[in-house]
């Protein structure tokens, strides 16, 4: 058995099955926690009827998804209508394959590293995640197109423009990490952060971290970027016509995408499975126990991120569409490009991992942006420059 496990491919397949199982449970309970945390933030009780504390609610929801009538409206594009939720689910569930869950493992304790606790470690590394993230737009777009419903169609248009726009700052921010680490394999990026005196990339590039986090919110269509399913304007957006398990598949795909996205941010900026100075979480700890410990640390970091996603949902209001596009093209894009150029100059000067230089430069960029904003004479209204001014009609005699 142990000999069999020492083969990387066998180990990968078993790990993949285990993680898909965990991910399914995690996604179901994400929905439960989303509702509980929403309730907590809004001073409500939340689901509490099914089982103790409502803990069986995901099972009840799942049962309802399966048993509900699954309407396929008459004038939808039927193949694409079926394909879209399938696409959303599949793409949500294949991104995790290259996340480094537990570092290197020595299974039989002979001091030789046998396998890596990662389903796959392809040479293209992070590009795989970018590709999967880019494909994820198809679930939304095909869904919106196939519905043949005006709301869904608008949602599909919006989602395309939004996801395309936010992919560019995302790519540039990942590039900053790649320039710092000199690697595109995720495990190597984690090791580079450990090797750099336990300084995670978030300490070197906090602004890039915030931009990447923002783009992950936009790519997963979460509030404040959920314009594709803005229920007040577009009913359900791209899933207006979906019901029963097809709607459930969109839901599962979205949460799985959130988990993968958080995993990516954690690997790139927060040291993956690593915590500084704690024995068992260092690269040289390769026992099975250390692997499980590393996996739980990684999972805990993802859980913190998921809580953050839910917290933001009830804290920030949704953007308007022009604000959304402006944020990406006029805000995040130039800033991340500037940071990228600055990082390459630092790499050239050999200062790419120096805390003072990186942090100083980032703070400099923030300062410049703030200074430009302060020097602008136009009032900050959130309106575009080409929009007509608001005229306030005062009644006669008013002060």
């Amino acid at each position, binding site marked *: 058995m142990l000999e069999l496990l020492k083969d990387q491919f066998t180990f990968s397949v078993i790990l993949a099955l285990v993680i898909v199982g965990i991910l399914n449970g995690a996604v179901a309970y994400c929905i439960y926690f989303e509702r509980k945390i929403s309730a907590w933030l809004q001073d409500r009780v939340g689901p509490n009827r099914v089982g103790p504390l409502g803990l069986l609610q995901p099972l009840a929801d799942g049962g309802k998804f399966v048993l509900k009538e699954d309407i396929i409206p008459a004038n939808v594009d039927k193949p694409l209508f079926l394909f879209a939720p*399938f696409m959303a689910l599949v793409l949500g569930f294949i991104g995790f394959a290259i996340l480094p869950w537990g570092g290197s493992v020595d299974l039989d304790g002979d001091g030789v590293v046998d396998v890596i606790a990662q389903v796959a470690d392809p040479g293209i590394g992070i590009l795989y995640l970018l590709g999967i993230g880019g494909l994820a737009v198809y679930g939304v777009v095909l869904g919106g197109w196939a*519905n043949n419903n005006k709301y869904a169609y608008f949602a599909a248009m919006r989602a*395309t423009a939004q996801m395309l*726009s936010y992919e*560019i700052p995302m790519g540039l921010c990942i590039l900053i990490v790649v320039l710092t680490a000199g690697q595109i394999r995720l495990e190597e990026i984690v090791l580079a952060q450990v090797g750099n005196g336990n300084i995670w990339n978030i300490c070197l590039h906090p602004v890039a971290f915030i931009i990447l986090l923002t783009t992950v919110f936009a790519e997963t269509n979460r509030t404040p970027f959920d314009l594709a399913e803005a229920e007040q304007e577009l009913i359900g957006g791209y899933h207006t016509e979906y019901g029963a398990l097809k709607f459930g598949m969109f839901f599962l795909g979205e949460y799985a995408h959130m988990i993968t996205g958080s995993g990516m941010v954690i690997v790139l900026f927060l040291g993956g499975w690593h915590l500084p100075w704690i024995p068992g979480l260092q690269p040289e700890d390769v026992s099975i126990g250390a692997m499980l410990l590393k996996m739980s640390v990684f999972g805990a970091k993802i859980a913190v991120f998921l809580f953050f996603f839910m917290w933001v949902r009830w804290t920030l209001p949704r953007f308007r569409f022009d604000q959304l596009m402006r944020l990406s093209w006029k805000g995040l894009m130039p800033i991340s490009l500037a940071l990228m150029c600055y990082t390459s100059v630092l790499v050239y000067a050999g200062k790419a991992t120096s805390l003072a230089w990186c942090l100083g430069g980032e703070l400099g960029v923030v300062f410049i942006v703030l200074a430009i904003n302060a020097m602008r004479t136009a009032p900050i209204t959130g309106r575009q420059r080409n929009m007509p001014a608001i005229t306030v009609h005062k009644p006669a005699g008013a002060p």
Partner: protein
Amino acid sequence: MVVVGPSKAQSLQRYGSGVVSGMVLAVCRELRYLMMAWSCDGFERYCGVMGESSLVPYGAILVVIGIAVSMGVGALLIAHLVRPARKGDVKDSTYESGMPTIGDARQRFNVRFYLIALLFLLFDVEVVFLWPWALAFFKASKTGEPIVTTGGFSAGSGTLLGAMAVFVAFLLVGFAYEWRKGALEWD
């Protein structure tokens, strides 16, 4: 409540060009990722920038895709087998807040979406060039030795930095132009 509007055939005829251009864009996007993967992989063979690669991880990825696909197909099948199906004209009509549907949903849309698509292609191709460059540049800066390709072309870190500075400068000129032209404004 009968759906008023063109039939599916008419609608396809009318908006076919939109579908085709959308598909072309889609293919371009995927080619881009292939290009990115290929260019990094090519660099690896070209100047040994990345570590060794093997096909084993791709086998594992195929297994994961297989698991995910079977989950998706299984979900659709279960939904198909278990759900009740009681059809009805009203039930099967398009839901637009209870209003009778007027016309087809696939209408013309704002030209700005096309602009965004074009700008996206431009900037994303830029990022494609930056990926392999970043790896080569890091290696050249770290070791202090020029990157020598199999074709005999050699470039030190300074040359690489200068080349990318010129490239980004051209790009920034284009970016400034489109900003001034108002291609990024929505109205």
